[in-house]
């Protein structure tokens, strides 16, 4: 079964929406709180789901100007989340919407834990682009104007997500409207994270080895991890241009994730985004990761069953054929 049409609609929803941190945001985890693995590392293993964090905007919405993230809670937060859930359902109304049983019964935005994601800078906004990034964006727009293409002239006009190639990083960690399950496993030497969506596996060495050569570039990047107290710190570089986060410079982008077990079912996760060629300063967003044994990762044979992409392309060709016939 293929859910890509839904996926691309969702990609839009995600761009509009993103995700979130929580009441736990301001708490310093107690060193003794984290359960330990048999070999003494903090234990962050388990099945997780980001389902409830779907729909949280990346940046601080204007309506919260002057307010702190941790102050938006309780009924106020619930009402915001309920409204987001209602909007999401409405956005799929109409004759072409995905079958409701694929997603609506699992929709759980009401339990979302924060009103926006960016925690640094303090204004909750992604920092300004550098002049270089502004020029890069303008050049790309100019190239598109000079050589206009339809949205589905080829598969290359579709997103890497539509094509079942990758959601990249931090995209793979972020919620979508379905397929939010992922799993963390640990050994003394590695931490592995498996994402159901598209099916991605990150295997993060903990032994302090250097990054691979800058000539080796992958969509999920080259990750290195280490423990700082109770926090797993994962630094990822060596990205590819096509999938570099928010059109950053793949060769200078560096993502630093921090995973800290802060509760029986909660791992606090933050990402510091650094790319001096794209943003004038590093910035950080955060979201709680919630363990959920009821949501084990199932195999998502995204590419193998990608009728969505095939249908998008064949429909575009059919429309062109019909337009020619009507001339």
């Amino acid at each position, binding site marked *: 079964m293929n859910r890509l049409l839904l996926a691309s609609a969702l990609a839009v929803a995600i761009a509009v929406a993103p995700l979130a941190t929580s009441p736990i945001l301001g708490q310093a985890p107690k060193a003794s709180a984290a359960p330990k*693995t*048999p*070999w*003494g590392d903090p234990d962050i*293993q388990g099945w997780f789901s980001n389902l409830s964090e779907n729909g949280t905007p990346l940046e601080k919405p204007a309506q919260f100007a002057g307010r702190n993230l941790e102050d938006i809670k309780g009924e106020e937060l619930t009402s915001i989340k309920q409204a987001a859930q209602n909007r999401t359902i409405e956005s799929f109304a109409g004759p072409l919407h995905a079958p409701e049983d694929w997603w609506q019964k699992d929709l759980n935005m009401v339990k979302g834990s924060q009103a926006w994601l960016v925690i640094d800078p303090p204004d909750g906004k992604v920092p300004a682009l550098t002049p270089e990034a502004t020029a890069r964006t303008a050049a790309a727009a100019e190239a598109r104007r000079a050589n206009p293409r*339809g949205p*589905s*002239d*080829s*598969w*290359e006009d579709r997103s890497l997500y539509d*094509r*079942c*190639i*990758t959601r990249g990083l931090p995209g793979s960690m972020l919620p979508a409207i379905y397929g939010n399950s992922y*799993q963390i*496993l*640990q*050994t*003394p*030497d*590695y931490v*592995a994270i*498996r994402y159901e969506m598209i*099916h*991605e*596996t990150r*295997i993060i*060495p*903990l*032994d*302090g*080895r*250097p990054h*691979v050569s800058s000539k*080796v570039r*992958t*969509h*999920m990047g080259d990750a290195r991890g*280490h423990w700082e107290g109770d926090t797993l710190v994962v630094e990822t570089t060596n990205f590819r241009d096509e999938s570099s986060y928010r059109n950053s410079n793949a060769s200078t982008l560096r993502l630093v994730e921090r995973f800290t077990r802060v509760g029986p079912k909660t791992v606090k996760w933050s990402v510091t985004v650094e790319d001096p060629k794209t943003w004038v300063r590093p910035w950080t967003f955060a979201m709680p990761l919630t363990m959920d044994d009821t949501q084990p*990762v*199932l*195999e998502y*044979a995204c*590419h*193998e069953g990608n009728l969505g*992409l*095939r249908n998008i*392309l*064949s429909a*575009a*060709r059919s429309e*062109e054929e019909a337009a*020619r016939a009507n001339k």
Partner: protein
Amino acid sequence: MKYRFPLASALVAAIVVSGIAISASAQRDAVVRPARTADGHPNLSGIWQAMNTAHWDLEDHSPSPSQLYQTGAVGATPGGQGVVEGGEIPYKPDALARKKLNFASRLSLDPEVKCYMPGIPRATYMPFPFQIVQAPNMVLMAYEFASSDRVINMGKPVEAAVDTWMGTANGRWDGEALVVDNTGFNDKTWFDRAGNFHSDQLHVIERFTLMDQDHLLYEATIEDPQTFTRPWKISMPLYRRVEKNVQLTDFKCVEYAEELLYGHLRKDPSK
């Protein structure tokens, strides 16, 4: 099952040396690996790769040319000794006929060409490494090809929820061997590039047994009464990739198969 190796003495020595998780050290991987995990089982963690021609053909086979002359020697098939116990896969007559058709049309039918998940056991002996991450209650096997992976449940066995490409894996320890019982396969994967195939009745029982620290005996018993007259078995050593700092490099081959799969749906600029 029939294999016995002089494991005991090597393991005893290794346990004395290691046994405990050691703090990070640049030399650690090169010098000492814990022979056992904290829960006392053989530690299979590592990056492994087959070194044989099973990927081209599980059975004994002579060298043969590529179907695409443009690929010259690069696309030709190396000959090799098979890995099937007894030499031949016991196909039912109809299934053997289909296997031959598969082989004749392998460029259009082999799921590997389309970058589809390879299934089990094929993922194990493709010409790509795979990594075992042996966590306390789960064993992850992550394959470089197509970002495919599977997690072997080491707890109470679970039923396959649905048929999948990589199957549903329940594992247990049988002495020194990790035994993995795989069910819930679809009928879309092959065993090799020679068109050897199965139905959705496939049941694969694998055994992973360390022969020494850098060699892992891989055995797989294959049952599929719809396709074969009896169960049959393959076996081969897997070799630890011992290069310093070796790691998997994602091979997301979807991008390399799109022209093949969707090229006919590309907009024709002349129209």
